[in-house]
């Protein structure tokens, strides 16, 4: 029985646990880290089962090449040579921007750094992105504009000090369970709770106020609350005058959002909007918590701006127990963004378009770097479908299930001249790949992950990877070398050392300093203790900027042909495309099949019974799923989780994109339902 301390591979909360291994070196279980500030001896069901998929028989154990429709096992050298030849061949023939690199919020910081270096320095394109595009790209865009930094402003410990928590568009107890539990504990000790969510999520049972606004109407709700706060004279005038700019524009922007007007858009009673505003404004310390319910809209960036405006208006920034707190989804989605696995920035959000930043990276890497920002993941899919992107390397992502409009994604991936995927399991995306490379999973390698509260922490190797599977960083080093770039890193610690020299916010981060509980960035130098709360004295951008927004309806609303609003998301027991959780016995047992939540009144109208298979269709596709009759969804709405390949919610969703962040509208499209 050995115990290896590591970071949970699932959500962005950043719990730490010990992987237990038996005398034969096999993983036998998980024990939460007792003194770690996030886990404190606790985990959610996914964490408690995080060892379970590691030795699943489906693990990829050898490089495989598809020839005449058949997968054949090949050796690493031939596989890597082929990969490099294909990518460089396409780049030479059609230009480097005909390549696309998709990185992963599941792999380490070091691996994200290497892949973005490979794309930019190795193959000469800024076409690199990852699944943050699908979750918090709206946050990064919106918060950089208003506050100067796109990350969670405060820390998880702030939940223990706050007076009020406003949760909007986050099913926290299911998606960030150990943050959800902090919210429940805060309520127990007397903090107030406002939940704004069309579904009756668990937190709603504990809320002082549950607002069930129509999906996609958040801007109206938030503007309405702000108008009311101004009407009541409850704004924080001192904070506004000393620390913000553009207030007059905000006042004007929210003027028309009277409770009655907001009620029409949101479907809420006008009094609820007034009560929410008053409850929120009265708190001396209020935290706003949000997630995909805010970001995944064709106006996701506007939603984020509205949230930021509300926090600025009430002075809820830069202090303990306050803040704009986007909860990042994947265990390393914060890190993948920090590492510059994005088309427009290098590490630490240094802009590709900034000649000085480009010069710095160019000098460090010893090559000329491309100037124009690259393609966002969602645009790259469109470009591939149109034949403009021809070669793609996907590291640990499964866009066939995770991107909106599966029909388009399939068309795009099938049209590529060459697709290579590095992953730990076969997925719906590896099914379309010409080359599949087997990777080590989180338990089989060292690295660092950055949690939602900007805490950089260690992942540690607990066992050997199966067969010929290799850590991603070694695969990427081998490719860098084939591109003629030096990549003789002895271990991931050396990669972090290089990253730290190029990244001001990670400047003080090194492996020895991460022992124990990690460090929260910004951590600019070796003596810096890390930063639990951002924007204390001043905002990262100087003054906080009010950025007024108007309400824009969602791209596709229910109509006579498609009368239901489809809401998509996740469930507690599964993780994203299910490649790990559906291979974990207990998690799989809890939820075994695709389902659709439908309100009992709607079910009755359409003669649908509990557990009956139903057909759900949108303008883009049709799937079947088992009906789950529940008043968790309001009448007129259905909810489908996107984990299940056999009933893929994203065959239905609309790839209407936010014009600024490129995020698809996962939370609103129109569908119809029929018994199968």
């Amino acid at each position: 029985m050995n115990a290896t301390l590591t970071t949970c591979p699932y959500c962005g909360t950043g719990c730490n646990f010990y992987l237990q291994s038996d005398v034969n070196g096999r993983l036998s279980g998980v024990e939460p880290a007792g003194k770690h500030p996030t886990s404190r001896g606790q985990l959610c069901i996914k964490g408690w089962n995080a060892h379970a998929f590691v030795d699943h028989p489906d693990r990829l154990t050898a490089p495989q090449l598809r020839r005449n429709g058949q997968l054949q096992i090949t050796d690493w050298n031939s596989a890597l040579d082929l990969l490099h030849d294909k990518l460089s061949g396409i780049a030479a023939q059609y230009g480097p921007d005909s390549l696309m690199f998709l990185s992963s919020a599941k792999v380490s910081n070091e691996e994200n750094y290497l892949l973005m270096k490979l794309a930019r320095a190795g193959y000469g394109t800024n076409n690199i992105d990852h699944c943050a595009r699908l979750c918090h790209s709206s946050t990064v865009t919106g918060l950089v504009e208003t506050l100067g930094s796109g990350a969670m402003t405060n820390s998880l410990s702030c939940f223990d000090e706050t007076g009020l928590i406003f949760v909007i568009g986050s099913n926290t107890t299911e998606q960030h369970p150990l943050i959800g539990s902090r919210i429940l504990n805060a309520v127990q000790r007397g903090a107030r709770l406002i939940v704004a969510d069309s579904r009756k999520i668990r937190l709603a049972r504990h809320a002082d106020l549950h607002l069930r606004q129509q999906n996609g109407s958040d801007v109206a709700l938030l503007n309405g609350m702000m108008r009311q706060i101004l009407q009541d004279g409850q704004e924080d005038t001192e904070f506004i005058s000393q620390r913000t700019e553009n207030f007059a524009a905000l006042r004007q922007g929210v003027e028309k959002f009277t409770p009655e007007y907001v009620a029409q858009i949101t479907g809420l009673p006008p009094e609820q909007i007034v009560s929410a505003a008053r409850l929120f404004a009265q708190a001396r310390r209020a935290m706003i918590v949000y997630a995909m319910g805010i970001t995944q809209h064709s106006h996701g960036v506007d939603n984020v701006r509205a949230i930021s405006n509300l926090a600025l208006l009430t002075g809820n920034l830069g202090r303990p127990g306050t803040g704009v707190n986007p909860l990042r989804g994947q265990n390393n989605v914060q890190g993948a963004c920090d590492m510059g696995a994005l088309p427009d920035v290098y590490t630490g959000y240094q802009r590709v378009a900034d000649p000085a930043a480009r010069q710095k990276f160019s000098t460090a890497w010893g090559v000329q770097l491309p100037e124009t920002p690259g393609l966002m993941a969602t645009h790259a899919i469109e470009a591939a479908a149109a034949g403009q992107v021809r070669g793609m390397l996907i590291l640990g992502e499964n866009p066939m299930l995770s991107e909106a409009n599966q029909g388009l994604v399939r068309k795009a991936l099938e049209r590529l001249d060459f697709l290579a995927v590095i992953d730990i399991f076969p997925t719906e995306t590896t099914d379309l790949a010409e080359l599949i490379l087997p990777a080590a999973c989180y338990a089989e390698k060292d690295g660092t992950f950055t949690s939602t509260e900007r805490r950089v922490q260690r992942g540690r190797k607990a066992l050997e990877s199966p067969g010929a599977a290799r850590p991603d960083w070694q695969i990427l080093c081998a490719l860098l070398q084939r591109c003629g770039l030096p990549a003789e890193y002895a271990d991931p610690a050396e990669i972090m050392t290089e990253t730290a020299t190029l990244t001001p916010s990670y400047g003080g981060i090194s492996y020895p300093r991460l022992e124990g509980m990690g460090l929260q960035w910004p951590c600019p130098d070796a003596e810096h203790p890390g930063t639990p709360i951002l924007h204390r004295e001043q905002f990262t951008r100087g003054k906080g900027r009010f950025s007024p927004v108007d309400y824009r309806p969602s791209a596709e609303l229910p109509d006579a042909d498609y009368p239901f609003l489809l809401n998509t998301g996740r469930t507690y027991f599964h993780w994203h495309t299910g490649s790990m959780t559906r291979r974990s016995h207990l998690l799989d047992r809890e939820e075994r099949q695709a389902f659709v939540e439908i309100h009992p009144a709607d079910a009755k109208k359409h003669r649908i019974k509990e557990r009956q298979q139903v057909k759900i269709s949108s303008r883009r596709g049709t799937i079947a799923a088992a009906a789950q009759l529940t008043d968790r969804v309001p009448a007129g709405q259905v909810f489908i989780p996107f984990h299940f390949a056999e009933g893929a919610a994203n065959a239905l969703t609309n790839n209407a994109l936010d014009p600024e962040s490129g995020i698809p509208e996962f939370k609103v499209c129109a569908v119809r339902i029929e018994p199968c």
Partner: protein
Amino acid sequence: MLKQLTRSALEHLLQQTAADYRLQVPQRLADGTRQLAPYGSGELSLFGETPQRKPTSAFFPQTEPLLKIDSTGAVQLPAAAEKPLALFGLDAHDLHGIAFIDRFFSAAPADDVYLRQRTNALLIGLTGAAGPDQSFLPLSAGNCDIELIASNDHWLAVAYSETGEQLLEPFPDGDNDRLRALREETSSYRAIRPDSLQKASELLLHDRVPDDFWEAIAARCILCSGCNLACPTCTCFCLQDRQRADGTERSRVWDSCQLDAFMREASGHNPLGSEALRTRRRIHHKLAADPQRWGELGCVACGRCDRACPTGIGIFAVAEEIVKRYEKG
């Protein structure tokens, strides 16, 4: 047999034990968690809070291969371990927990998989001044092979089995008066279980806790399963089959009665289909069903589920709430 050990004698005893056993000893791990780990793999931690992972996991691990069936249908059992296990550093609660599941797994029909690990294993208690900051831990009920009782700068060592006596043979005799004094201190110290557990048990047995109580408590359950997985007397497991190239491998995996599918029927119907029913069941099992079956509470008061529960509804918390609300007067 009563002996007395110095620090170096203690080390000697451990070395000797490690020669014949897979010895697990308490260590302080990287984040400060205290846990049993292989002897020699890190620094020994001789006092502190109860090791976090339940010691019963040594005999009944979270995931445990049971057998493999190859393509001919032949069944192979996992290879037997070379040496039996020895656990050092068990306090009175943990010894009690092991005794509790020993009785459960040994009751007919006996669980041979458990006994495979447990038979011939050695248990070494560690009590006395061995708590956090060398605070006093009550002495055991003798349900171990050897009990080491920390006292000032040495350890009194009591053997409760023949193997224990053999291992302690070489060491000098201990002071019986000192042992008597420590035993007295134990009885005056505190009951091994807080009163609230017993009182809550009686209220439950007399059906004095209404359904809406369970609704309110269970509304806070986030279904992490930690309360069960952390509990040394929880013994439920489910089976996991995995098809590999060389056959089908069957393992058992810790299960949790807080989970929906624990009782869900193939039809989809679930007799325990709400968190309220399941939370009620969890507490009932420990405080009402176990006393009826075994004559004692199913909670050994180790505190692990109260620590593991992210929302504060471990068994102490729930028992206290029951007593507060429903005890007469």
